[in-house]
Structure formats: C-alpha cells, structure tokens
C-alpha cells in the first residue's frame, strides 16, 4: 500500500510495526491468530453461546450422532454422549476450561518465572553459576512426572493439576529469562546506562525488559501449547479434572467406553484440542519467523 509521498520523508516503522508487518505476510499465521481470538471469545462468552447446560443429561437422547449423520438431530449439533449430554455445549465449555486455564497458568508462570529469572540473571558470581547449572538439570525432568508427584502430594482434582502444571512451566521461563538477561547485560547500551549511574532495577525495567518482550511472547506461546497438552493429558488420565466436568481430556477418557459405537465422542473433543494446538503453534511460529526476519532486514 503506497503511502502518499508529499514530502521527501522516509517512513521508518518502529520495531513493533516491523514485526507486525512481517507477521501479516504469513497468511497461515494470521488465520491462526483469528482462530486464537475465536477461542478467547469462547472463553469469555461461552456460557452465552452454548445451547444447553453441559452437565444436563437428556435421558431420552443417548448417543445421538452429530447433525451431519443421517440419524442425527438438529437439536444436538454435535450429538450427545453416553449420558445424554449435548456435545456442542460440552465442547464449548471444555474449550473454555482448557484454553482459559492454560492462559491463566501461562500468565502466572510468566510473571513468577520472569521475576526469578531476572534475579538470577542480574546476579553474578559462583553462587549463580552453581544455581544455574542446577536449574538446568532439574528442568530436564518431564512435566508429567512433576505433575504426578504434586498430585500425589495434594490429591487429584482440577485445582491441584493447575498447581502442578504451573510449577512445571516456571523453570522454562526462568531459564529463558536468565539467558536473555545475561545476553542483554553484555550489550553496550546497558553499559552506557550503568555508567550514567542507573540502579540495577532501573536498568532492568528500562533497558532490558523492553528488549525481551518479543522473545517472551514467543516463549509464552510455546508454554501455552505445553499447558494445553498437559491439562488435557492429566484430564485424560483422570488425574486432573474429574468427570462429570466438561474438560476436553476427561471427555476423551469418558468417550473411550463407547468409542466403537459413537466415535464422535472421541473425534470431536480431540479435534477441538488439535485445533487449539495448531492455532497456537502457528501463531508462535509466525512470531518467531517475523522476529527473525526483522532482525535480518
């Protein structure tokens, strides 16, 4: 879109605008962004959109196939499950739970992780190096294992699984933040600020943090996909959300019993999780590529 050139001015977009421009050139990423926005709308307006209550059982309509099947019923758009509950409403609520909770957990872990990582990064010396290596090694433990242990201590249930997952996400943010902070500390503009007499917190909030922002967003999308996967995995294993809660993973495990008769009980919740993952991953990919090209050009 050519700008009206009345004067011999140069149009220099800011880095953020540059990133956005690169991002929009990737059509798949933009489509996924709309998808993510759609899910966010579901999170906020879900209860208004769902036709039925997700826990309400319709005894006379058990295992009704989805509308596009010949035996289907227009009333139940996605069919019903073994207890007669409407799949569409359950899926909407399920998406709401999974997506919303993941978002919440990521934001929480981000704040805690960045805080810890900043402290670790800004400090230096033998103590920090020792801590860093320890942290790196402990990050190697699978998230599911950490979740299992925490659930063993605290018991099953959605809230406990939330604690478990956020505790598993924090090390990633700490590691990433620490690396970034270390990197930026070596730059000359930080040195300039230090020579000007800026305090450590001033340097952090004004020089380092703004430069970390984009990388943190990319990391957050990665963490988000891990969180969605872990929440549904724990729900599936009956360690997290318990039945009759309409969590997508729990729905999958319930649908196992009737899988052969009513495959849509498995296909649809799984497809919803898949769609969430794909959109988040594509957005993350798009952001990463946009950042890379912005730095190149």
């Amino acid at each position, binding site marked *: 879109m050519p700008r009206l050139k009345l004067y011999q001015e140069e149009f220099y977009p800011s880095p953020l605008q540059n990133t956005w421009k690169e991002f929009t050139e990737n059509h798949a990423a933009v489509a996924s962004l709309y998808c993510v926005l759609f899910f966010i709308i579901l999170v906020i307006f879900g209860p208004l959109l769902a036709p039925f209550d997700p826990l309400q059982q319709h005894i006379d309509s058990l295992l009704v196939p989805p509308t596009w099947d010949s035996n289907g019923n227009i009333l139940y758009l996605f069919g019903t499950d073994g207890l007669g509950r409407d799949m569409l409403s359950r899926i909407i609520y399920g998406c709401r739970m999974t997506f919303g909770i993941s978002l919440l957990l990521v934001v929480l872990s981000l704040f805690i992780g960045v805080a810890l990582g900043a402290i670790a990064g800004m400090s230096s010396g033998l103590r920090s190096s020792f801590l860093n290596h320890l942290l790196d090694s402990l990050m*190697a433990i699978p998230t*599911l294992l950490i979740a299992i242990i925490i659930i*063993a201590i605290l018991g099953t249930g959605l809230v406990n699984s939330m604690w478990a997952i956020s505790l598993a996400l924090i090390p990633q943010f700490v590691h990433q933040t620490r690396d970034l902070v270390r990197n930026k500390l070596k730059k000359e503009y930080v040195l300039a600020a230090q020579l000007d007499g800026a305090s450590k917190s001033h340097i952090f909030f004004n020089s380092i943090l703004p430069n970390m922002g984009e990388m943190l967003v990319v990391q957050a999308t990665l963490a988000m996909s891990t969180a969605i996967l872990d929440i549904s*995995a724990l729900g599936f294993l009956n360690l997290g959300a318990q039945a009759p809660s309409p969590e997508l993973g729990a729905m999958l495990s319930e649908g196992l019993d009737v899988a052969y008769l009513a495959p849509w009980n498995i296909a649809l919740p799984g497809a919803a999780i*898949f769609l969430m993952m794909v959109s988040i991953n594509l957005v993350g990919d798009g952001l990463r590529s946009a950042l890379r090209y912005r730095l190149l050009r």
Partner: protein
Amino acid sequence: MGKIFLRHLSLLVLTLSVLSLFSFSLAFLFPGDPLTNLTGVRAENQEAYSHLAASYHINGSLFSQYWHYLGQLFVGNWGISFSSGLPLAEEINRSLAASIELSAYALVFAFIIGLPLGFVAGLKHHKIIDYSLLSASVIGYSIPVFWLALILILIFSLQLGWFPLSGRIGLLFDIPYKSGFILLDILLSDLPNKSDAFYNALRHLVLPTLSIAIVTSTIVLRTSRRSVIEVMNSDYIQAAYARGLSSRQVLLKHGVKNALIPILPLLVMQFTTLLTNAMIVETIFSWPGIGNALIQAIYQRDFPAIRAGMLAVSVLVLTFIISMDLMIRLIDPIRRRPENATA
C-alpha cells in the same frame, strides 16, 4: 579435556544427591506415616516395622535417617510396593527396560524419518516441497499424543484389525526375562516357536512406537530444517560456491556436518517431551513400562512405588542428558575451546 569430564561428573553427582534428598522428603510430604512411605512396610507388620524403625533411627535426627535411606538405595533396597507387596527394585528394573525399549525404537524411527526429510525441506527452502513438509510437521506436532494413539487404535486395531490393542506380547507366549528388552529376549531364549513370538512382539510394538514417533519426528524435522537453512545461508558456504566447488561437494563435505552439530543439543532437550509422551502412550496401550507403572501407582496411592519410580526416571533422564552433553562437548571442535571464567 579431563576437566570437562570431571565437571560433568560432579554436576551429575550433585543433581542426583539433590534428587535423593527430594525423594527422601517426599516420604514426609505424602500423606501417611513417613516410615511406611519410605519402606512400604505398614504398621500392622509389627516385627518388621519395629526393626526398620530402629535401623532408620526414627527418633533420631533427620540427617541420620537420610543417610540410612541413601545407604539402602545403593544397596538396592528400594522399598516394597503397597499394592503388590513385592520388592520395588526388580519391578522397576523390568518396567524401565520396557520403557527404554519403546522409547529407543521410537527415537530411532523418528530420526530415520525426520532427519532426511528435514534436510530435504531445508535445501528446497521456499519451494513447494518445503511448504508441504512444514505443514505436515505442524500438524504432527500439534496432535495431542493421546488422541493420536486413540485414533490409531480405532482405525488399525478395531476397524481393520491389523494390530493388537494392548500389551507387549500375546498372552500365549511366555518369554523368560533376561535383559528386559523383549525382542532381544526372544532371540536369546530357546523357545520352539521363536519366529512366531518375534513377529507377535513386533506387531505389538508397531502402534505404540508409531504414536510416539510421529510426534517426535516432526520435531526432528523442524530442527534439522532450521539448521540446514542457517548453514546454507552462511558466509562460508557462499564462499565455497564462489570458489567454484560443485553443489555436491559443498553439500556433502561442508553442509551436512555443520548442520548436524547444532541439532544434537536441541534434540537432547526434546528427550523429556519424548518421555512424557511415552508415559501417556504406555498407559493407553497397557505397555508394561515405567510410565504405566507410575500412573497405576498413583491410582492406587502406592507411595513407595511412586517415589521409587520418580527416582528411577529422574536418574535415567539426568544421566542421559548429562552424558549427551558431555559427548557433544567432546565432538564439537568449536566448543573445545577452553572455557573462560563466565559460566
């Protein structure tokens, strides 16, 4: 070079001790009597209980208890399971071997598919084949592994009946336990129908391996593609072309080696994801691995088993990662530069 080795060794020892400390503390964190959690012996069993209480210095300091616990670990006494009553050490051995077998096959498969495809995608950057491979990898990467396993079961087990639904081998076969790796054990044993057993075991392996491998191979693909793109755009490759070297020479002699080196550390980090996926898949397919054992243990609130299992998995993961890290340091000529003071 010895210094690097020592450094890694000390790191391993350090993290393992932290882990053992954590495992010890879990006995107190888990609900129930700490001594029971530690050993698996309940209070009803009076004699054994009091005996253990004495040897664990239950009224003494925490440190002496921890020391005793550490000693027991080294000796091989990892406690007794609540549910089965059997000593945990041997159960863990078997399950661990089964898990390692499954994960190893999945990893090899993922590399065999992911690496070459990643190279092809990287070399034909921005062309159609690159885009299609990339899209395929995004899809494979985003599928929840349990959904994939379920769909595979639905189609290949129930609908088509090609592959069995669960387990490691048919119930009719009884393979003596030698190494824990079932394919190896079959070959080593002297059963009358070895080839049948082998074929049966293979059929049981296919679906679980595929479920894990599909997700992992996409990650391998993406990583190697990115590495190849970066290497091919680097200055020395352009300079080699300007020197007039042919495409084949440039690629084989310089491109491939340089592209492989940064891949290894990234893939080592993916090992934990592989393990998580393996654990979930084991549960779905009732594969007798450590993941399945852990999850069953948590269903039954078998705390000693959980602790022992956690310790085993963590030890495995840490040893693997640290030794891989060491190997990478040794292989990569650039990293062999002497370390400076900053970590």
